[in-house]
């Protein structure tokens, strides 16, 4: 019986060591950067509501310089239509935490839409058929008058909802889409400082 106990102790100790060894140390979180620029948060920007369905339809335009929604005929910097984000100037994506991304690159911008800013969860995931902005993606914009701005998409749904709830997972109770919540910082002086 002694041997059984020894083996048991060995097993338990072994398992504990394995379990302990598999716990890896966490790395430090990103340093806090004190911002020079004002960070603006825009909540639930959406295209005009359709008279029949009551849901957003078409494209909504925004001026980062003026920090307000504008008409397509006015000077706009960024526009949204379902999952298409377009800029009037040029754009590129960078990886990072929004607050600690401090200097815009001077090259690498391409004219056109913002590619790969979201993931689609597909048919089988829970929540399914959902659009999530890719985390850690910063949209860098060079406007038509060569001003730099950084934008981070936060939510594609009305009210910037908690996406881990059962209410969000259920398509019947999920808040309406094409409601854009994002934050941005606009450098008006023409430098690349985005701090």
């Amino acid at each position, binding site marked *: 019986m*002694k*041997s*059984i106990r*020894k*083996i048991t102790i*060995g*097993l338990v*100790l*072994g*398992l504990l*060591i*394995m*379990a*302990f*060894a*598999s*716990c*890896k*140390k*966490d*790395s*430090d*979180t*990103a340093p806090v950067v004190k911002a020079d620029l004002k960070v603006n948060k825009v909540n639930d920007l959406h295209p005009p509501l359709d008279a029949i369905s009551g849901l957003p339809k078409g494209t909504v335009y925004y001026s980062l310089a003026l920090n307000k929604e504008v008409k397509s005929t006015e000077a706009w910097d960024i526009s949204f239509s379902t999952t298409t984000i377009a800029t009037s100037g040029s754009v590129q994506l960078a*990886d*990072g*935490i*929004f607050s600690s991304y401090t200097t815009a690159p001077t090259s690498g911008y391409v004219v056109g*839409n913002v*590619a790969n800013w*979201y*993931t689609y*969860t*597909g048919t*089988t*995931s*829970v*929540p*399914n058929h*959902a659009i*999530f*902005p*890719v*985390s*850690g*993606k910063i949209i860098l914009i060079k406007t038509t008058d060569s001003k730099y701005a950084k934008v*981070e998409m*936060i*939510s594609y749904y009305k009210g*910037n909802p*908690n*996406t*881990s709830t059962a209410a969000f997972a259920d398509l019947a109770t999920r808040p309406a889409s094409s409601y854009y*919540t994002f934050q941005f910082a606009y450098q008006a002086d023409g430098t690349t400082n985005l701090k």
Partner: protein
Amino acid sequence: MKIYLSIFFMFFGFLTFAQEIITDTIKATDLKDVVITATRTEKNIMKLPVPIIRITADDIKNRGIVRLNEILAEQTGLTIVSDHGQGIQMQGFDPQYTMIMIDGEPVIGRTSGTLELSRITMANIDKIEIVKGPTSSLYGSEAMAGVINIITVKPKDGFRASVATRYGTNNKADISLDASYKNEKISLSAFVNRNSSSGYSLIENSSSPTVVPFSGYTGNIKVGYQINKKSDLNLSVRYYNNLQKNDYVIDNRLVLGDGKESNLNINPTYNINFNAKVKSSLRLYYSRYATKSALNYQDDQTVYDDSYFTQNFSRAEFQTDYSLLNNLKLTGGIGAQYETVKATRYDQLESFNSGYGYFQADYTPLIKLNIIAGGRYDMHSVYKSQFSPKLAASYQLLNNLTFLTSVGKGYKAPDFRQLYLNFTNAVVGYSVFGYEDLAAKLLDLQNARQIQSILINPNSLQRLNAESSLSYNAGFRYAVTPKVKVSVNLFKNNIKNLISTVIIATKTNGQSVFSYLNIDRVSTQGVETDISYAPIKVFQISVGFQYLDAYNRDDVDRIKNGKVYMRDPNTNETKLVKLSDYGGLLNRSKYMANAAIAYNNAKDGVFASLRAIYRGKYGVSDLDGNGMVNMDSEYVKGYTLFNASVSKLLIKDRLRLQFSVDNVFDYKNINFISNLPGRLFYGGLTYSIK
């Protein structure tokens, strides 16, 4: 980590020392049990220095099981994963890394690396041997996680025949007929099996069933001729076909048509014993696997899918075993292989040539110490030559306690799909090109002005190479008392050059061009243990457990360097992923367990069992687009399945009546587990003439 492991091994060393003081005189009972798969020679299971699972025909029959996936699902450390079919996950490896063999010859016909296990019937099976850990030193490519060898029944003296049936929920029917005859010179056997189902839908009233109706046949004819006392000649011909009646809705349109699948194996062998010390065998093997699918829209009869796939595999192999000394047995073999594939998604007939040689020395320097050293060298027409050595040792410290340890290299060759399969999705617009065709195909797209930007220049790439692993296994088998048996195995697999899908270029339609590259480095490590307890002869309790840690080493580095982000689902704020958030490789459960209670009373002919299988939570998706599992919602919840069966033998054990229930508590997960149809009832009837 390494430090802790060495402490652990040191602890075992101490345990070894401590054990030496205890005198115990219990003898291992199953001395006659031999295993062939682990060394390619007959070897006593107790001495085998590698972890092994052996499943007997009785285990399968008593559980009322008819297909391979059902029995593998109940083994420690194995789990069934669904990806283009039901495959096996072993020691944290995907299904493509486990070789499946019938009578020592590989089964071909994989889809995206998965070999559909339900293809293989459990009727006419003698036993199944499962060797865990790399076995490329004997079997070459694919045997990186291990091998599963299904050994069919050899005819026994005289005439025998039997019929076996099982019928149950979803009109699942399985019928087998077999007959065999053997005398001193000749043996003959014939076997046929039919397996069918009306399919099922996990979602009620769904227009597209989860599994469509199918019916499949397996036939096997074997002929054996004893030429003289020293040599014999054998031929096995095995054929499988399956017909799938597709009927589902695509974009609100009904699609109808047949999916056909077939597999033919022809395997002649010649064995000769030159004398008591030397014997040789010549094995030839031809296998052909083919699928054909013709699906039409029901409304206007236009074609939805019309495709075929044909794979041919031919091999000649010669092996000699030489007992040089009483305690030294040498095994050597050479072989040549020719493989081809022709399919809708391949531009032309593609072929591989390969040749190989293997060698093994089985040395017993001390009565209690057994060392097996071996290796295999594979030469291939398309990728670099591979050498896969392996060293294993077992030490029988006491009659009832054996320690085993092994280290070996495993590899998996790039397959036809990774090299040559070219496919553009007509609906979505993305393209996948096999590595060998990538440069030319990309140029075609560029000339057609369909490429926006090239992210990786194909000319800058290294040629696609085999994936390789270095693996360690160590553990012990211990019969604590004749009634209590324990086995423990620790494993660690370091895999490099893992072939992954990468984006090579972006297209003007916003989609991507994909191909394959050797980029990732992953590791799997853990411990597996089995404990069985038989308080009385007819009654047995067994418990199995596996702890698994499977991770991408490059992902771990990216996290450590602060390069991976996630979104807090409650606040939608972006933050850095910490190592404690990292969920490891997809589809791997950290914890898996099984338990069984069996009552086997041969005297009264009553057999009953209740089995439980637990699979812990596992990562399944990447909702936040950071390339890894890190949020609760990216996991599938853990679950436990219960299976039960009872059978009674009547009329001098000729007739067996059986009743079984799979998934007693009707567990389902509609979103994530498509191969779990809920509770299934079966009734079975078997009659044998001996």
